[in-house]
């Protein structure tokens, strides 16, 4: 609720958020869904005093969760989702073109887990995470020829790696439960990605080859989740969760090119210096009828980007999230989820210490989600 569900076992999403909770699900269940996210970002230039809107894009993260109860003691879980999917796209001629024209990061997590009910009150679970990440960036290169005012660099690559996750959930009573889970950092090493340089003057093509390779590393952060759920009445459930996230692992984004392109290597270093950040999420669920649960949630999501490091490829800021949703039980076994989420970033003014690119940023995002639950 509000983006995470670690403290109670409501549906199969617990396979992702806290495998320890799977043993407290009443039945085996599967949840498949997707979301359409439409972020809208704007930048206010100190040079012109006017606003530039980011080009509109829609992102479609999806999730498929399954929690299978083998017996009273054991459950198996599988989670497939896309937890870090981000992208920005500015007009290619805009004044920040030498920093970013386009950036995109997508990830898919496969997370198989096993859970064990230690007692009627305690469930534990653990598993590994296999992550596959794809990253692409596009930006202008400051070289002029008679046919083009700048060149273009496009880097695209992917990589994968393993991590682990573990969690436990405690059911203190019918009313109160709590959970802790941890997902490790995953270091995605992109090897031999494709680098393409276009519109480069002929005399500089030995420095900026039309195609070459690059390596980079993207650290997807560790997440610790601590949460509790409390049934105020039989119909009303309150869930409070906090997620300290180890963003400080994202210190820099460096692109390494083959040694013959040393000039590229010198310019391929980007300080990020993210700090660890925390999110706090509060959700309320009300079982309105036997067939309908409605939910509302609010969250505060702290930005890991420090002052002096805000960049238009990810104009991050502290975020407030408001969400509404419902589950409609068509039959005992088949439920439909729908949700709407609104995210507002606080307006942020900054000058990047490395690129000296400054201005104000504001982002809003709207997301609509649909899901189908099947319990068996």
């Amino acid at each position, binding site marked *: 609720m509000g983006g995470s569900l670690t403290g109670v076992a409501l549906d199969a999403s617990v396979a992702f958020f806290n495998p320890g909770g799977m043993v407290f699900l009443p039945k085996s269940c599967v949840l498949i869904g997707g979301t359409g996210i439409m972020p*809208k*970002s*704007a*930048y*206010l230039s*100190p*040079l*012109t*005093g*006017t*606003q530039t*809107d980011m080009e509109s894009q829609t992102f479609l993260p999806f999730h498929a969760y399954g929690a299978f109860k083998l017996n009273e003691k054991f459950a198996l879980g599988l989670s497939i989702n896309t937890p870090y999917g981000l992208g920005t796209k500015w007009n290619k001629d805009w*004044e*920040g*073109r*030498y*920093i970013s024209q386009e950036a995109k990061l997508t990830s898919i997590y496969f997370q198989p887990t096993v859970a064990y009910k230690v007692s009627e009150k305690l469930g534990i679970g653990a598993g590994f995470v296999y992550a596959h990440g794809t990253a692409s960036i596009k*930006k202008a290169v*400051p*070289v*002029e*020829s*008679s046919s083009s005012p700048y060149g273009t660099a496009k880097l695209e690559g992917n990589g994968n790696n393993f991590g682990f996750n573990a969690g436990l959930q405690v059911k203190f009573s019918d009313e109160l439960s709590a959970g802790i889970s941890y997902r490790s950092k995953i270091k995605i090493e992109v090897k031999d990605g494709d680098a393409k340089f276009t519109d480069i*003057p*002929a*005399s*500089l093509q030995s420095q900026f080859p039309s195609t070459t390779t690059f390596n980079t590393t993207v650290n997807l952060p560790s997440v610790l989740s601590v949460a509790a759920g409390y049934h105020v009445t039989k119909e009303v459930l309150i869930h409070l969760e906090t997620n300290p996230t180890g963003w400080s692992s994202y210190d820099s984004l460096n692109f390494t090119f083959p040694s013959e392109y040393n000039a590229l290597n010198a310019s391929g270093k980007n300080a990020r210096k993210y700090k660890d950040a925390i999110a706090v999420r509060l959700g309320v669920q009300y079982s*309105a*009828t036997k*067939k*309908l649960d*409605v939910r509302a949630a609010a969250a505060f999501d702290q930005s890991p980007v420090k002052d002096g490091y805000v960049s238009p490829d990810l104009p991050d800021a502290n975020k407030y999230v*408001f969400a*509404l949703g*419902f589950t409609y039980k068509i039959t005992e076994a088949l439920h439909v989820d729908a949700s*709407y989420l*609104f995210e*507002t970033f606080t*307006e942020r003014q900054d000058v990047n210490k*490395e*690129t*000296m*690119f400054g201005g*104000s940023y*504001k*982002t*809003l995002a*709207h997301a609509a989600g649909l899901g189908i639950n099947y319990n068996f």
Partner: protein
Amino acid sequence: MMRSKLVSFFFLSVTAFCLNSCKPELNELTFSNNGVDFSNYVAIGNSLTAGYMDGALYKEGQENSYPSILAKQFKYVGGGKFVQPLTNSNIGIGVDVTTFSFNSKYVLGYKTSCAQEVSLSPVPFAATGDPTALAYIGGPTYNNMGVPGMRSFNLDSASFGDPNILISLNPFYSRFATSPGNSTVLSDAKRQLPTFFTFWLGSNDVLGYALAGGDDALDKMTPLTIFKNNIGDALNSLAATGAKGAVANIPAVVDIPYFTTIPYNALVLTQAEADALDSTYATNNPPISFVAGNNPFVIKDGNGKRQMKAGELVLLSLPLDSVYCAGWGSNSLKPLDDRYVLTTPEINSINGNTTQFNNFLKAKADSLDLAYVDMNAFFKSTQSGIVFNGVTFTPQFVSGGAFSLDGVHPNGKGYALLANEYIKAINNKYGSRIPMSDVNAYKGITFP
């Protein structure tokens, strides 16, 4: 009942959210002149003000001059029309100070050295300069009163634009003087009744000497009293009209690629070459010897010759083919001529004068309540590289991105950086809020 209410609440909320905040809105910035009248801006100066670049005055260069960039920024705060004395030529015309001939602009091309090595190098765009660029277009006045080559004492001199007095004639002024032989740069500037002016003069009063390698026979620095009298009178009379303005000072010669591109020890020798040369200098006083690798050039020093010392400067005008294939700077009969070299005493005297001139400019700007643009400090700060919106600029010749192909004048991006220094100083002095120019939008170096 309950359910339908909740569902409708849900959809109403969604609609309300969307109506209020579907699109982010940022408050537009307001710029302000804080009471300063920028409606009639006149720029006074030398080649740096004229938009001279790539060794010539040409149309595209002029369109990238810092006064034209400033005028665009002034438009945000009430600036008016800014008319430049544009040449109608993109071949351009410039004066080659080493040969005293008229050249075209330089472009980056390929040059084959005497050793048959091909490399990127500035090459003339045309065999000679375009004389039509000097055709008379005077009569009307022009907001950009930048005249290449102008020194302090030319500012109010009628003979500076007089086609009949060749010894003092400057064709770059004569071409747009309202009345050649009668009007002066200063009188043409003042008759426009500027409400705001920029004033950047004095570089040639020291740089002319520096560009001549400190060769007194070719050029001399302006004596301080003459500099003070001419600049002082001009600034007094401009400020007396009530116009506001900005005065820029003189950059240090050691911060310009024309003097820093060729190292003092760029003479590369093999051991055999070094040994052979050593024998030809056996009796020289001071002793001269060579090693394998980099060696200081041999230069004329008074009647004798000596090797250069660290800190001394070689000018970009040095013909490198003569160094590599004709023994210049190594052969005992061919020490480098004074005109290609700034020695330590010459550098000290240039720096000394620069400091004195700048002290005067600063005092004058302060006393007349004008903005003071410390270009000297700015050029120094560029040594370590300055970053604008993700692009790093350094004073490196060609690759640094800010200087044009003559190694003395900035290119369009460099001029935009200078315009931004003006804007900072003006905002700081007058409390105005004029936005910086977008440096990356201007012309840089075009690579083939």
